[in-house]
């Protein structure tokens, strides 16, 4: 067990301590920030330098304890309108140092106050680099952050009690309860909300779309009743293989509305793969950051992209062609230059494409925004055909 990290800007004596414990017995003590209590989840690290607010509010992090590799978190406070959902979505949060005196013309609340207010159990004063190397080598691990006076063994036992991410469908926890319309424009997009990030809605709205957010359990009929110009499958948390409802809906839509322009991001991309007979697998520690190079195999062009996923789509070669394993009609269009994993595919004859990463950025680079235009173009093209 690693010793307590010194924390220089307040005396450690008299502050509430919090313990982080992982299922494999790794544990460390730091200082509690945010709410008191105990929280469990899958422990993953994120390498973004800025954008902690977007990370905290990204529904795809539901069920996860996020470790930030950058040591100073909270520098510019909480910025009105920079959230990706109504509030924090992470199960827990781990920082080297949580900044109490932010500075930015937009800064509202401080991060620690905001965490406390939203009941997020978080800890600072942890050697997040040491922890990151551990997670890199061992893979994502279940863990707990607790302010209770548990000893190491008890805390580790709690970590082992956390349900594993495999087999977990978490879309129900983060989707809209009832369908809801956002943005206006002449194109109607039916958006299956598996944990939709706000910036995706912004991008679609900016591109002239009326976005109808549908609950993760929406059926194909509910989608078609909207007579949409396009179908969007959102990002979201959990194991794609377990998102049965979503997979079923998309499978039916691909049969009943084969030429409905379709675009998927992240979990949406994985669920689309499943809907076409593809499969996914769990990555060792996933991709969580804002600096991953993704190459478009058709043009060779590289985008620096925003990532947040623990699972990936399995690929295979059919006649030398890279396709989604089990779904030969889905050809691989994008790969990650870090580890060669699948980052995107398209249907060989239908207006359907999807990417594993986050063209909406937030946080991260805007390089891949062009996908939204491509989606809108596909919808317009379809219209002119119908007309």
């Amino acid at each position, binding site marked *: 067990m690693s010793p307590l990290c010194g924390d220089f800007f307040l005396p450690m004596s008299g502050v509430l301590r919090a313990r982080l414990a992982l299922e494999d017995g790794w544990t460390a003590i730091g200082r509690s920030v945010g709410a008191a209590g105990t929280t469990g989840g899958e422990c993953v690290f994120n390498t973004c330098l800025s954008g902690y607010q977007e990370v905290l509010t990204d529904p795809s992090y539901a069920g996860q304890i996020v470790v930030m590799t950058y040591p100073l978190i909270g520098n510019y406070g909480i910025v009105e309108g920079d959230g990706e959902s109504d509030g924090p979505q992470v199960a827990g949060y781990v920082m*080297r140092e949580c900044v109490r005196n932010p500075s930015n013309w937009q800064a509202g609340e401080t991060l620690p106050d905001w965490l406390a207010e939203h009941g997020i159990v978080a800890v600072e004063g942890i050697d997040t680099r040491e922890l990151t190397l551990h997670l*890199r080598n061992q893979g994502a691990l279940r863990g707990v952050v607790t302010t209770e006076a548990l000893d190491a063994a008890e805390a580790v036992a709690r970590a082992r009690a956390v349900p594993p991410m495999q087999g977990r469908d978490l879309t129900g926890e983060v989707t809209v309860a009832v369908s809801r319309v956002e943005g206006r424009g002449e194109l109607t997009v039916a958006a299956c909300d598996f944990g939709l990030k706000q910036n995706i809605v912004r991008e679609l709205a900016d591109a002239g779309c009326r976005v109808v957010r549908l609950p993760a359990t929406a059926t194909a009929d509910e989608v078609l009743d909207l007579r949409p110009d396009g179908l969007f499958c959102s990002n979201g948390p959990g194991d794609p293989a377990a998102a049965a409802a979503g997979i079923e809906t998309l499978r039916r839509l691909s049969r009943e509305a084969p030429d409905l322009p379709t675009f998927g991001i992240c979990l949406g991309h994985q669920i689309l793969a499943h809907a076409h007979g593809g499969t996914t697998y769990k990555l060792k520690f996933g991709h969580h950051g804002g600096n991953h190079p993704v190459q478009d195999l058709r043009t060779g062009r590289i985008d620096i992209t925003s990532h947040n996923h623990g699972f990936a789509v399995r690929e295979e070669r059919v006649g030398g062609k890279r396709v989604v394993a089990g779904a030969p009609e889905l050809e691989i269009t994008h790969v990650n230059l870090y580890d060669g994993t699948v980052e995107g595919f398209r249907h060989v004859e239908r207006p359907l494409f999807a990417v594993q990463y986050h063209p909406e950025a937030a*946080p991260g680079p805007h390089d891949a925004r062009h996908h939204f235009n491509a989606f809108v173009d596909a919808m317009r093209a379809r219209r002119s055909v119908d007309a």
Partner: protein
Amino acid sequence: MPRREDLETILLIGSGPIVIGQACEFDYSGTQACRALRDEGYRVVLINSNPATIMTDPSSADETYLEPLTVESCRRVIEIERPQALLPTLGGQTALNLARDLALAGILDEMGVELIGANLEAIERAEDRERFQALMLEQEIGVPRGGFARTVEEAVNVVAITGYPVIVRPAYTLGGAGGGVATSEEEFLDLAAGGLRASPIGEILVEESVIGWKEFELEVMRDRADNCVVVCSIENLDPMGVHTGDSITVAPQQTLSDREYQTMRDTAFKVIRAVGVETGGSNIQFAVDPNTGRQLVIEMNPRVSRSSALASKATGFPIAKIAARLAVGYTLDEIPNDITGVTPASFEPSIDYVVAKLPRFDFVKFPGANRRLTTAMKSVGETMAIGRTFGEAIQKGLRGLETGADGAFDPAMAALADDALAERVETPSAERLFEVVEALRRGWPVDRLRVATGIDPWFLYQLERLAQAEAEASAGAPSGATAADAMRSLKVAGFSDSHLGRLWGRTEADVRALRESLTVERGFKVVDTCAGEFEARTPYFYSSYDPGNEARPLAGPKIMILGGGPNRIGQGIEFDYCCVQAALALRHAGHRVIMVNCNPETVSTDYDVSDRLYFEPLTIEDVEAIVAHEKPDGVLVQYGGQTPLKLAIPLHRGGVPIVGTAPDAIDRCEDRDRFSSLLASLEIPQARAGFARTAAEARSEASRIGYPVLLRPSYVLGGRGMIVIRDADELEHALEESLRISGAHPLLVDEFLENAVEYDVDAIGDGERVVIGGIMQHVEGAGIHSGDSTCWLPPRDADPDVLATLADYTRRIGLALPVRGLMNVQYAVRGRVVYALEVNPRASRTVPFVSKTVGVPLARLGALVMVGGRLDDLGLTEDPVPLAVAVKAPALPFAKFPGVDPILGPEMRSTGEVIGLAADPDEAFRKAMLGVGVDLREALAGDVLLCLAEEDREAGSRIAAALLKIGARVTATAATREALERRRVSVRAVEREVDPAGPVRRGDFSLVVSTARGREASEEDVAIRRAALWAGVPCLTAIEAADAAVAAVEAAAAGLEVRSLQRWEARARC
């Protein structure tokens, strides 16, 4: 896209002498480029006039031209080498401007040379501020309001739009030279005129001031396929108005939200694409309004820069190396990231630490200079520090500067009255950070300081917490159950043992002992470009007090080399050259090498120079920690200048094995008493010398020794505070100041050896044998610092007996000490008497100059000797003979310090040097002068003003006559003219005016010779020299230099031949 096959030979232009605004970062980029291009199988031809660089080591390029960086010499090189391409983006502003001139002169087209990296169009779009601004507006990118001027009148018109304060920014200059802020009409007229002169194309940008806005920089790379990445973001602690080179900066940026940062990133890409930099790195500067977040683009540099060196060291992403490979056709995804080995270079580094860069200033050497920091750069070096907290990074950085601070707290500040402090914090200066911290210690609110300084509250809050932590710490050394936590907390915040010792009334050693008893010890973490996401193969470490430790001690026989820290006047790139040579030689000989240094500009801090790099300050605390962890078999302290040498004794006492010359032998040279008894025992003459601790002692010593005397504070470098005293009342004038500088140490009073010729000798010894590497004869007489004087190698006109004596004395000293490794001895020779002035038992400033001139890698051999090699076995038994005649000339920074008297003296002020290499001494001299920007043929063909010291007028008359003979028009000031007339040399009288310097300011002269120093110098003398400086007229301040200049022009042929080092060697061999 693969490597370009249509290229075979590539020409690379270096950045010339080290000057303010262009330091060794371009040796780092150039060296990386040479290596990268040769690894790709290209033939690399290099031209650079700076002999101290690593890139000009004959092993770096295929053909190395140590020639002046002029269009003419480049033309000759191109004619001889016939390169297909010229890579202009790695040699700073100098290379970029020269490449542009070559293109405009039609030489590149004529010779079929392609500009790669950035073409002429791109260079002009970025560097011509007018075209740049137009381009930005066209792209709808915000820039400060302003306009352009080619005359002062035009400039005044622009002010009508902008109002005051107004910023003047000359085009194509470097380090903000000639630019500044004007708050009033008259300030403006002067500034505008200066700016127009400073700009090589006579154009200035006059623009709205956004002083006080936040300043940011992005380091961007682009490849042929138009892939763009940001390597690093940098935020300036000092807001707009202080040149980025003079600002304390941090990486990554801290105070922009992700949304704001991504907007800035998008803009940066828009800029680099619009400017059209095809491949490589660019640096883009932004100003951000702290109240609205509005972003403006300030400038873009279409080349690698000081900041890209910093960004490379801050992230581990080798910008220059990759830029070179992009220039020959690769795309980012085709280049592996060496650090991970498995991922490509097409990514954006993520870092998990805080980096601080701190500028190093040397104002003390320029009395009379305005110390206010402005838009024109004045710092002479920098240090970088890495920490897990802001406090750790900034406090490490401040100790790394070696300006006496052991952290962010300067005890002297306590003496300042509140109102004095309040006034001080408002002016940006070298001390401002300490002033701000002091103010925070006094409990001044952050907001008050934000208003007073314009520093972003984020930094102020961080500093405030340091102040609070210090206040808590002053309660006393930690004890009891929480002692370990408390101690760790302080160390995590970057407090040094010596600082804590001061707080607790204990010695640094006591604090260390206490710390260790509490097991509060540092660990080391890896700089890996990816925040731990992938395994790093590159061993690049920094220390922190977080628990994790990633540095398993290196296996096998290992030598630790201590570098030289930040560049400063007197200690610069020469020492980095030596450290790097040592690393290469030792690795080649099978040792593992550990490098410790904290200067981001250098090659030594390139992670692949040694087996392991620790980027840490060179203080005893930081070095001891690394030694304790690595337990090296030997530590090499003699190559980094005074910095590591100072650590020799303390390390030795701590039982650390020091290789080479023994610490005690080092002490025998450094300690004045022991030194003079050493000389006495060897029967080597020395100047009479004495000590004084009080004014009275000084007076009696001076009269005992006899005037003139030389006052020198002890334990200083670069002749700091040294002055020549001619008589008793001159002594009175100087005493107070000298005693003050000397402080606790005694003031040394030496007999000043007048009219003596000075020699520098570099030698190498192994205890059995001493080989003389080279004997340099100074052009200027003793009394002008060896670092500032011009010298000949081999000596131009020396009595053979004298040379024999110099060699003999050097051998005696080398064997007596004994020296194991390199040594440098300085002598003053009067008649036939040879006096030893000082012995430096270490690598000297002239080692690279000598090594290249004689064709023997002295630094490499020295390192091998230090680890036990014998010269016989290394095959160095004879004193080598120079391959050619070499002249070393200094690059002086006076132009950056208006108001300073630009006269040379015993205190060193030059920042860099150039070499002139030729078959005969006169041509060599002319080349050296060309290297520092003086074309003697032109200068001496025009109007020469003589204004000579009494004792120089005899020689002066000869010089005047010779000048007239070669067709110069000679003018003299009254007294000088009289003296010349008396010797039957008639010259013009300078027009009497209210302002005697008027004609000089007006640019009536092409050369000024003004030699009166000390009290002899009248106000007129000084005014004339300042005027020359202001008007950019070459000014010689030593009569011997004038003599040599005339001889050089009389003798040498019109054209100057160029020849590569490799060809000089071949020529010498047969």
